[in-house]
């Protein structure tokens, strides 16, 4: 007899797994300046940028992790989880507000 699994695989588990797969590719990302940085450099105003008021995990790396690829992946996993939590939690709150 077939035993039905109690935990149904929901579509968004798959979507989250896809997001984590993307994160494992993040050490391969291009380190070139982005569009705005490039324009700021070529038009000579990059130096007016102010340093951040405080630093938590600048440049998407977890400090203290010597392997830079791993530090980037860990920062990415953390950020992805935080944002899933915020998005999901916010939606729950707004849904509760509706009722």
């Amino acid at each position, binding site marked *: 007899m077939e035993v039905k699994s109690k935990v149904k695989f*929901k*579509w*968004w588990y798959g*979507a*989250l797994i*896809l*997001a*984590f797969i*993307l*994160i494992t*590719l*993040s050490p*391969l*990302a*291009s*380190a*070139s*300046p*982005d*569009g*705005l940085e*490039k*324009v*700021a450099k*070529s*038009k000579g*105003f990059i130096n*007016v*940028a*102010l340093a*951040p*008021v405080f*630093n*938590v*995990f*600048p*440049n*998407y790396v977890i400090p203290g992790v010597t392997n830079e690829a791993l530090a*980037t992946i860990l*920062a*990415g996993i953390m*950020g*992805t*989880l*935080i*944002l*899933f*939590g*915020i*998005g*999901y*939690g*916010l*939606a*729950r709150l*707004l*849904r509760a*507000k*509706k009722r």
Partner: protein
Amino acid sequence: MHIPDGFISTPVAAAGVAVAAGSIAYAVKATSKRLGEKQIPMMGVLAAFIFAAQMLNFPIPGGTSGHLLGAALAAIFLGPWAGVLIMTSVLLVQSLIFQDGGLLALGVNVVNMGVIPCFVGYYLYRGVVPLFHRRKLGVMVGGGIAGWLTVVAAAALCAVELALSGIVPLNVALPAMAGVHAVIGIGEGLITAAVLALVLSVRADLLELQKA
């Protein structure tokens, strides 16, 4: 194109905060009216996916890189107001935790990368899709065009803000920002079309959530 502090003047930053705050307040109201049970995981997934995808800078010619913005995708899946909330969440975490995008500049960044592209992308997509007989083709072309234009629109707006701040004249900033982002936008269009095509073939019902 996360604007760091220093690139924009205090009045421009303040105007950005005002527009962003007003938009967010209305977005909370509008979204809470329409949000159903099915949309809840989608909001979490979109915020997580857009954050993850934004870490993947792809190279473009000329020693520059670009990454997904994601505002068009967020708005296409859940509507422009929920899209504004998703993009605000991403930008807030990037600014506060990862020091990507200034604190004072958070308002203009929300306007440039959230409010404006969510509306531009949503209505453009909705306008283009019915022009095609084959739905899948319409969704992909609509998503592609929407993705491209959201990036160019955000870049143009950024150029205007830099000019208003007295950092660089508009006739210098606008062609430079629009030009480089017209190329980066191609990546945005391709990724947007690919994600929509994937969802359409695997779970087409998830593309109807914004109508609820």
